[in-house]
């Protein structure tokens, strides 16, 4: 019985030590583990942007999408507090539209415009058929956009 006790304590303390070490490591690396920065972090210079590829994520600002040329698209990424203007040449994902989540990768130009090399759509965890959304909207209970 006492050998079993010993092994139990050994396993539990080993797991606790490993968990603590992992937790501290992840906490120390937390700034590097994020996939994208918010427009506010970029506007307030909280991220190193000099000659570096970064990702900015947020929503495509309402009314911001312009297509001056066939393959070029201008839009703005917003977190409802700050906004970053983006220029991108290429195809955007099917889900890309105003009000939809988006993550753009690229570099911040000298004039504050973000020159994206890749644009990804980010969708939320709501899964509903169109009929249900229409019904919710009709009854005024719809909380999404």
């Amino acid at each position: 019985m006492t050998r079993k006790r010993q092994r139990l304590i050994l396993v539990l303390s080993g797991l606790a030590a490993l968990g603590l070490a992992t937790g501290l490591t992840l906490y120390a690396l937390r700034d590097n583990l994020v996939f994208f920065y918010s427009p506010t972090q970029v506007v307030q210079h909280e991220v190193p942007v000099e000659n570096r590829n970064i990702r900015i994520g947020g929503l495509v600002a309402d009314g911001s999408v312009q297509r001056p040329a066939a393959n070029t698209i201008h839009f703005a990424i917003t977190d409802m507090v700050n906004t970053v203007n983006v220029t991108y040449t290429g195809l955007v994902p099917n889900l890309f539209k105003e009000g939809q989540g988006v993550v753009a990768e690229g570099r911040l130009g000298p004039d504050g415009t973000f020159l994206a090399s890749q644009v990804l759509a980010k969708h939320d965890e709501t899964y509903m058929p169109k009929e249900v959304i229409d019904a919710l909207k009709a009854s005024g209970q719809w909380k999404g956009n």
Partner: protein
Amino acid sequence: MANLHWLANPGRFLRIAAVVLPWLAAATAVLLAVGLWLALRAPQDATQGAPAKIMYMHVPSAILSMTIFGAMAFASAIALIWRHPLADIAAKASAAIGAGFTASCLITGSLWGRPSWGTFWVWDARLTSELILFFIYLGYIAIWQAIEDPQRASRAAAIVALAGSVNLPIIHYSVVWWNTLHQPPGLMQGRTDPSMAVPLLTLMGAFFLFYVTLLLWRMEREIVGRKIRQFRLLRAQA
């Protein structure tokens, strides 16, 4: 613990498994058929359209990939501490099944990511930690392959399973702790309409039964395999 000791007898386990297995296999087949039928009939997601149907394979695979590793870590702890004779067999028999579900999760996720996000793969915290889980599974399997003596292999593998279990909360909370391209879980938060949640939950049940069926079958084979090994060793000594 009394029940654990009652089941500790491999001979008794083999007798029970032989009776239970056909029923489990039949239940798996029925639930899988019902789940797939419900999933095919389920309405399309308003935002994502047809590609979101991949979730009926992706989400159960993802949940099983983590559940199975959790079960392996639990069985490994029991094997290490109480030396339960079936625990390390259960952990070993689970590994390949879990690795399969992890691969399925990664592949279906990738196929879903291309039409909805616009990319097959990104190195965000959720995708990366799930890929690491796959590598831990492979490492665990490799240890059993590399060490010939089952008792020594069992201890080394159990430590890998316990250490690897640290990754499970990281996978689960990755979408909460850090921002990721992957969306947070929506099933338990009521963000999934019942017309899609019911097929999803049915398939989760089917995948789980599939795991239990394969597990018992692989445990049977492992027990018999070890008996044959012991027999050969005894004969070589004689």
